[in-house]
C-alpha cells in the first residue's frame, strides 16, 4: 500500500457504482472458496452445494423466493429511511411485532375465522411494525435520542415479548408445554401457490405473501424516485442544511422514514407467521431485519438493486442451510459471508469517489 495513494475524483464514477457491488461479491466468493478449502472441503463441490444445488429445482427456487420476499420488503422500507440518513436498524424487532399483532388475531379468531381474517392480519402486522417503529420515531423526533441505539434496544425487548407470549398466555394448551402457539387455521394462512392447482409449484411452500413484496417494489420505486416526499427525504439525507433551508420539516421526515420501514418490517413478520411457520414460536429469529440492512446497501438503496440483492442474500441463507445438511458445516457460515460481503462492499465503494494512483516520490 505504501506506493499507492487515493486521489479524489472530480465526480463520483457512475461505472464504479455498478462495478463495486459485483467486485464485493467476487471477493466474498474468493474468500468463501478459501474457507471451504481450509475446512478440508473440495472448494468447487462446496461451492456447488452452497450456491447451485439449492436453486436447481422448483422446490429450491420457491424456497429462494420465500426467503427473498421478506428480505426485499424490509430492505425497501429501510432504504427509504437510510436515504434520509435515518438509521433504523431495529427492523428485526419491528418484524417480530408485526408477527405478534397478526398472531393475536389468528389466535383470537381461530375457530370463527372467515375470508376477512387474513387481510385483517396483514393490516394488523403492518400496524404492529409501525407501532414498534413509532417508539423510536417519537424518541428521536421529540428527544433527539439516537435512533440506532433505541431501535436496536427495542429489538431485544421485542424478542423478549415474543418469548413471554409463547411461554405464557399464548402457549398452545395442547402443545406439550413447548413454547409455541396453536397452528393457525386455514383462514389465517396465506394460500399456497400449489393450492391453486399451479402444477409447477406442487409440493412447494411458496405462498401468496410474495405478492405483498411484488406490490411493494413498484410502490417503493415510485415513492423514492418520483414523489416529492421521497425527494425531500433524500435531500434531508444528502444535505441536511439545504433541507432545513428549504423548510422541509425534519420531524415529519423522521416519522415518515420510521413508519414506512416499520410497516414494511411488520408485513414481513405477517408473511412469516402466516406463511411458512404458521404459528408464533420462540425459535423464530430469522435475522431478516439485520440482513435487510446489507440488502439495502448492496442494492444501492434503489428498488431494482434491492430486488437483485435480496435474491443473492436469500441464496446465502439457503446455501448456509444446504452446507449444514450436506457437508455438516456450521450454518453460521452464511452470517460470516453476509458480514464479509458488506465489509467488502464498503471497501470497494472507495472506488466510486476516489481513484488509485501511484505515489510520486516527494
Amino acid at each position, binding site marked *: 500500500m505504501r506506493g499507492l495513494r487515493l486521489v479524489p475524483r472530480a465526480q463520483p464514477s457512475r461505472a464504479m457504482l455498478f462495478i463495486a457491488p459485483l467486485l464485493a461479491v467476487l471477493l466474498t466468493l474468493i474468500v468463501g472458496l478459501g474457507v471451504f478449502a481450509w475446512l478440508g472441503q473440495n472448494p468447487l463441490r462446496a461451492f456447488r452445494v452452497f450456491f447451485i444445488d439449492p436453486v436447481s429445482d422448483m422446490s429450491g427456487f420457491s424456497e429462494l423466493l420465500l426467503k427473498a420476499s421478506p428480505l426485499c420488503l424490509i430492505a425497501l422500507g429501510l432504504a427509504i429511511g437510510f436515504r434520509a440518513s435515518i438509521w433504523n436498524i431495529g427492523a428485526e424487532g419491528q418484524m417480530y411485532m408485526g408477527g405478534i399483532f397478526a398472531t393475536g388475531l389468528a389466535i383470537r379468531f381461530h375457530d370463527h375465522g372467515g375470508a376477512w381474517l387474513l387481510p385483517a392480519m396483514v393490516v394488523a402486522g403492518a400496524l404492529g411494525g409501525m407501532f414498534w417503529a413509532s417508539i423510536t420515531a417519537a424518541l428521536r423526533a421529540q428527544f433527539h435520542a439516537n435512533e440506532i441505539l433505541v431501535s436496536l434496544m427495542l429489538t431485544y425487548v421485542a424478542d423478549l415479548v415474543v418469548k413471554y407470549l409463547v411461554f405464557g398466555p399464548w402457549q398452545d394448551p395442547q402443545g406439550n408445554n413447548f413454547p409455541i402457539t396453536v397452528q393457525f387455521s386455514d383462514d389465517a394462512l396465506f394460500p399456497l401457490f400449489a393450492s391453486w392447482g399451479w402444477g409447477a409449484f406442487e409440493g412447494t411452500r411458496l405462498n401468496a405473501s410474495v405478492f405483498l413484496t411484488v406490490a411493494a417494489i413498484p410502490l417503493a420505486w415510485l415513492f423514492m424516485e418520483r414523489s416529492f416526499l421521497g425527494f425531500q427525504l433524500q435531500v434531508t439525507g444528502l444535505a441536511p442544511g439545504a433541507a432545513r433551508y428549504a423548510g422541509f420539516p425534519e420531524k415529519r421526515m423522521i416519522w415518515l422514514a420510521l413508519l414506512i420501514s416499520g410497516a414494511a418490517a411488520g408485513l414481513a413478520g405477517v408473511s412469516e407467521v402466516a406463511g411458512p411457520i404458521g404459528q408464533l414460536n420462540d425459535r423464530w429469529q430469522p435475522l431478516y431485519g*439485520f440482513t435487510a440492512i446489507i440488502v439495502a446497501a448492496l442494492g444501492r438503496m434503489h428498488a431494482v438493486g434491492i430486488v437483485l440483492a435480496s435474491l443473492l442474500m436469500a441464496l446465502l441463507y439457503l446455501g448456509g442451510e444446504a452446507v449444514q445438511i450436506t457437508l455438516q458445516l456450521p450454518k453460521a457460515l452464511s452470517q460470516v459471508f453476509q458480514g464479509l460481503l458488506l465489509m467488502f462492499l464498503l471497501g470497494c465503494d*472507495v472506488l466510486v469517489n476516489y481513484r488509485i494512483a501511484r505515489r510520486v516520490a516527494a
Partner: protein
Amino acid sequence: MIESLTPLLASAVALAMPLILAALGELVVERSGVLNLGLEGMMLLGALASFVAVSHGGGLAPAALAAMLAGAAAALCFGFVTLTLQANQVAAGLSLTILGAGVSAFLGRQYVGFRAPASFEELPIPLLSKIPLIGPALFTMNLLAYLTLVLLAATAWFLYRTRAGLALRSIGESPVVARSLGLRVNRVRYAAVAFGGAMAGLAGCYYAVAQFKMWQEGLTSGNGWIALALVVFATWRPLRVAIGALLFGGVSAFGLYLQAIGVHVSTFALASLPYLATVLVLVIISSDQNMIRRHAPASLGKPFHDDS
C-alpha cells in the same frame, strides 16, 4: 438493610465492569472522531479468543492477551475500511457486528457446552474487604475488575493530562486543524481504534472467563450496544462512564435481587430491564441537545481524507 444491600451492590459492581471496559475503549475511539458501532462483534471475538486460550491450557494472562489481540485485529479491519478507504462508519460498524457474531459462532461451535478450566476468581483485599457494604463490592473483585479500575484511571489521565491525549482530543474536534498543526490524523485514529478493539476484546474476556465461565453463541447479549449508549450517557467523559455503568449494573442487579427475595416478576420483564433502562437514559441525556452538542467530539463519524 445492610445485609440485603451488600450482595445487591456487589453484583451491580460486577455487572458494571465489562461495560466500563468496552465503553472506555469506545470513548477513546469517539474522542478521536471515529464512531465504531462494532463493539458487540469485537466483544464476541474477544470472548471466544479468551475462552479458546483458556481451554487449551493457556492460563489467564494469555487469555486476556488473546482477547485483546482478537478485538484489536477486528478493529483494525474496521479502521482500514473507514480510515483508509473512507467507508461510512455506521455501515462499517454494523458489518463488523455481523461479522464478529458470525465468525465467533462459526469458530466457537466446538467450545459450546464446556466450562472454562480456569477463570478469574475473586481476590479479597485484606482488611479493606472487611469494610461493611463497600468491602464486599469494591474490594472483593476479580483481577480483571481491579484492572478495569486501573484502566479507568489511566484513560482519564491519558486523555486530560498528556500531550498525546490532547492531540487525540483535538483530532476529534477538528482533523483539519490538527493536520495543519502537523498531527498525523489517521495514525492517531488507527491507534485509538485498535485500543478500542483491545478494550472491547477484554470486555468479552470478562464475560467468557470471569462472569459466565463458558462460551456460547451471542454470549454478550447486546451489552456492546449498551456500552455504546453509555458513552453518550457519560457525555464522552471517562469517570461518568463508570457512574453510568454502575447504574446499569444496579438496574440489572435489582431485578435479580427482587427475584431472589421471592417477589413475583416475569423473567422476561426482568431481562428487558437493561434495554429499557438504556432507552430511558438515552432519552434523558439527549433531550438536552445543547449539552450533547457541547460535549460530543465535533468530527464524530465524519469521514476525513488524510493523504499524508
